[in-house]
């Protein structure tokens, strides 16, 4: 029998190393980045300016125009992911579990997941060649037109990551016991009814999870846009999202001198956008989702 004090000491022993690493490499940098956003360090010395950088970011036309544009684009980037990736992922998962593919299920499952394992640079490069007006299949400059550029990039990203919601929903569908489906069939339900009335409610909690993951992922998005269009993504900043806006502010671009305070401010805003929504989601939505005991 181990005494309580020893038990706590053991607990501390096991927790402290991981906690120390986490604090040193995640919590501290995060907080110091947020702290940086309250200072103005241009001109050598650092002065506390309160919410000055935030006011600049939201209201000073020189920076706010780009910020609101990037935020709007980011919302569009998220919505396209959600509206396309989720239904397509569901359709594929339903087909994979429908039993109609017989023994080729494993092959399809692997093929559909492969893009998610590719480097984003390769995905960008492949698609850029496919839709290139000079050498590719599409004569229309999809990436060069302000209206089509962002949807095009979003769809490339959807193509790459559709395997993720597919796997989530696929495993959820597999977890449904055969007896439930059988019972429905005996009661006279067809395939369509069985899916929507029986299977769908059982996998519904997955949608909340996928939505919030897509949200986090798209608002932290950066790589596909940067790989295709660089850090000042054109045309006319129509593909600029928060990640690229942050990169440009914090690290500078060819013509732009890096501004650490502004960059930290943008990073803090991105952090807040994700934090608030996730917290709201977990408190309000996730707790109310009905899960069925099977």
């Amino acid at each position, binding site marked *: 029998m*181990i005494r309580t004090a*020893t038990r706590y*000491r*053991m607990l501390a*022993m096991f927790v402290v190393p991981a906690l120390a690493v986490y604090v040193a490499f995640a919590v501290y940098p995060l907080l110091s980045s947020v702290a940086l956003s309250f200072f103005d360090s241009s001109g*050598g010395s650092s002065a506390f300016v309160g919410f000055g950088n935030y006011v600049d970011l939201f209201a000073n*036309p*020189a*920076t706010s125009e*780009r910020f609101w544009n990037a935020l709007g684009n980011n919302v569009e980037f998220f919505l396209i992911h959600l509206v396309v990736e989720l239904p397509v992922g569901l359709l594929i998962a339903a087909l994979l579990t429908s039993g109609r593919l017989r023994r080729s299920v494993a092959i399809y499952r692997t093929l559909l997941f492969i893009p998610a394992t590719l480097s984003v640079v390769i995905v960008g490069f492949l698609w*850029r060649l496919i*839709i*290139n*007006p*000079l*050498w590719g299949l599409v*004569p*229309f*400059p*999809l*990436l*060069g*037109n*302000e209206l089509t550029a962002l949807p095009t990039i979003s769809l490339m990203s959807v193509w790459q990551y559709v395997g993720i919601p597919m796997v989530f929903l696929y495993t959820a569908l597999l977890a449904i016991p055969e007896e439930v489906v059988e019972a429905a069939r005996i009661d006279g339900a067809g395939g369509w009814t069985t899916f929507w009335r029986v299977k769908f409610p059982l996998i519904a909690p997955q949608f909340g999870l996928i939505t919030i993951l897509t949200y986090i992922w798209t608002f932290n998005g950066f790589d596909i846009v940067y790989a295709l269009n*660089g850090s*000042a993504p*054109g*045309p*006319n*900043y129509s593909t600029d999202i928060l990640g690229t806006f942050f990169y440009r502010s914090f690290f500078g*671009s*060819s*013509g*732009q*001198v*890096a*501004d650490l305070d502004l960059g930290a401010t943008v990073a803090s805003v991105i952090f807040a956008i994700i934090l608030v929504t996730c917290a709201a989601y977990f408190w309000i939505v996730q707790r109310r989702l009905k899960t069925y005991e099977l």
Partner: protein
Amino acid sequence: MRFTPAPLAVLAVVGLAVVGCAPASGTGSEDGDTTIVLGTWRTEDAAMWEADIIPAFEKTHPGISVEYAPVDTNDYNAAIQSQIEGGTGPDVIMCRPFDVNRSWIEKGYFDPLDDLDAISAFPETALAAWQGDDGSSYCVPVASVLAGFYYNKAIFDELGLEVPTTQDELIDVLQAIADDGTYTPLALGSADGWQLAYNVLYQIGPNYWHGEDGRLGLIDGTKKLTDPDFVAGFAAFDELKDFLPSGFESISYEDMTQLFTLGKAAILPDGSWQISQVTSTGLDVGVFGAPVAEDGDQRYQQEMADMAFGLNAESANKEAATEFLEWLGTSEFQQLYVNKLPGFFSMGTEPVHYDNALAQEFADLKQGAQLTSRLALDRLSAGQPPLDDEIWRVSQLMYNSGLSPEEAAAELQKGLDSWYTPAS
């Protein structure tokens, strides 16, 4: 139950960490030589420096050895800054042109070099990119890049075309190629804004805004982008948009280079750094400079200062480092350097011979022309919105959405006025 192993393990881990963090051993070497370290962003040139240039220096300067220490170009600024702040900076530092270097000078990273003979081997325009606000020079220029119009000689011969020297002749030539219909007149796309700005607008425009007069006029506030000279420059740039390949809005820098090297396009506006690339498929390529407005006008040639070396103010080996910097000013070094690296050009006053014929043709463009830097990189982009980025954006809008030269100039000037106070 005892936990003695755990503290030991912690000690071991800490010990490892301390060893791992220990600074690399100093610059002294066994044979009594002084070793100087060159900090640069040219990772791709490491082999060339180590095999050719450093041995040439060490042969004539016994007792000094040189270590080439490149950092990837994207990390270079941050790396050098943290090294210098931490007291471990290289003895000789490669200098970025204009604003970045000016901030480094203000932070006291460099010693002034006005007393060096090497500095007097360069004209004022070459030194300008690395001078402080006090007018002193802090870096010895190494190389510049030039902009020009590459042209496919075979296509020009086939269609019986002459190399254009005025804007009207250029438009006629492009029209003739378009009428013939076999080739794309101009290998140019607008997917990369920087390319439109650096290789087209900043190349043609100086002939209208009179090169350095216009550029420095914007900086000291005596000129505005809405002045007729600047608008004329934007208009000349705008005239080329009728001769682009279809789908040009999506055509990137790599695409247009390929279009030209495959022999499908006649003219490619680009930088001298592409010399090896454009001739890689065996094309017979020539180059001409930006056409002037009217026959007999003064010609302006874009020469972009690219690399220079400065002396770390905290260096422990200043004497040896200074000897190295002096050597950079000699034609021995410049001759060696530019011929190892076709596409880069000596900025010195002494003429240098280029073994690469196309490089020599490029260098000849400087004859009789006044040199000028890219328009917006000095001071005008050190605020929000940065003029350079805005020019990328607006030049794309001119080609993609039909923004007029007047509107473009007005929009740019408005952005600049919102934050820039002219330097006196």
